[in-house]
């Protein structure tokens, strides 16, 4: 039993020596592919940059930007002014159109020739 147990480390030692010898004798004869080193560096770079989606990037940007009170106030003010301006312009257009329609209706009311009569 004791002899068997002491033989196993001996075998391992022998294997280790053989492996070291084989590795020392091993020569790589196959040429490396073109721009091998560059590609290795690129792969390393790619692995280092964490990949984030557009949505995540936008979310991060929004959170960062709206965290600034000045920006939040400016954003709300600009939207308020835009809404007011659009409402004012649209109301003006609508009122002008109604004005033209009512003007035409008044003229038709008082002038029978405009109604295709007599």
């Amino acid at each position: 039993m004791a002899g068997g147990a002491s033989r196993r480390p001996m075998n391992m030692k022998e294997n280790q020596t053989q492996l070291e010898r084989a590795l020392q004798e091993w020569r790589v004869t196959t040429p490396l592919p073109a721009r091998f080193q560059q590609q290795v560096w690129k792969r390393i770079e790619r692995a280092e940059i964490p990949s984030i989606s557009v949505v995540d990037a936008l979310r991060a940007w929004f959170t960062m930007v709206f965290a600034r009170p000045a920006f939040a106030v400016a954003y709300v003010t600009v939207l308020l002014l835009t809404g007011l301006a659009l409402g004012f312009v649209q109301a003006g257009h609508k009122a002008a159109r109604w004005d033209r329609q009512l003007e035409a209706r008044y003229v038709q009311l008082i002038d029978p020739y405009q109604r295709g009569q007599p």
Partner: protein
Amino acid sequence: MKRAALILLVGLLVAVAGYCTLYYRGTREHRQMLESPAPELAWLKKEFRLGDAEFERIAKLHDGYLPRCAELCRRIAAKNSELQQLMTGTNVDAKAVEQKLKEAGELRVQCQQNMFNHFLEVSRQMPPEQGKRYLQWVHQRTLTPEHDMAQRHGEHQTMDHH
């Protein structure tokens, strides 16, 4: 992120509220005019800046004018119908046709006189400057079919030249 979304939403709501406020304020007067019993007269009141008393007098004049105008239109239509009957016969009586044309023409003149008198009366109920403006405005749009014809004729001529 929640704070950012809230600010984003508040901004949009504020924009919509601002839009609605000015839109409804800007169209309120016209919506009231359109909902009134006589939107055309309400427009006249606004356009020529009439006071309530002036407007009431003009509305009365208007109510009196419309039946007179309708009656004249009816008589002209009847005269046109008589003329049509004369023209469709086999033996057209030239003198009778001439007479009917004359009568229809007289009725048209009467109709236009009625219109002009009404415009004049309406303008007199307005403040002087507005009355003058009303007469000019109404003259440009009515009583001048010849002007319209000349304009159309001119347009055709211009097109021919091209």
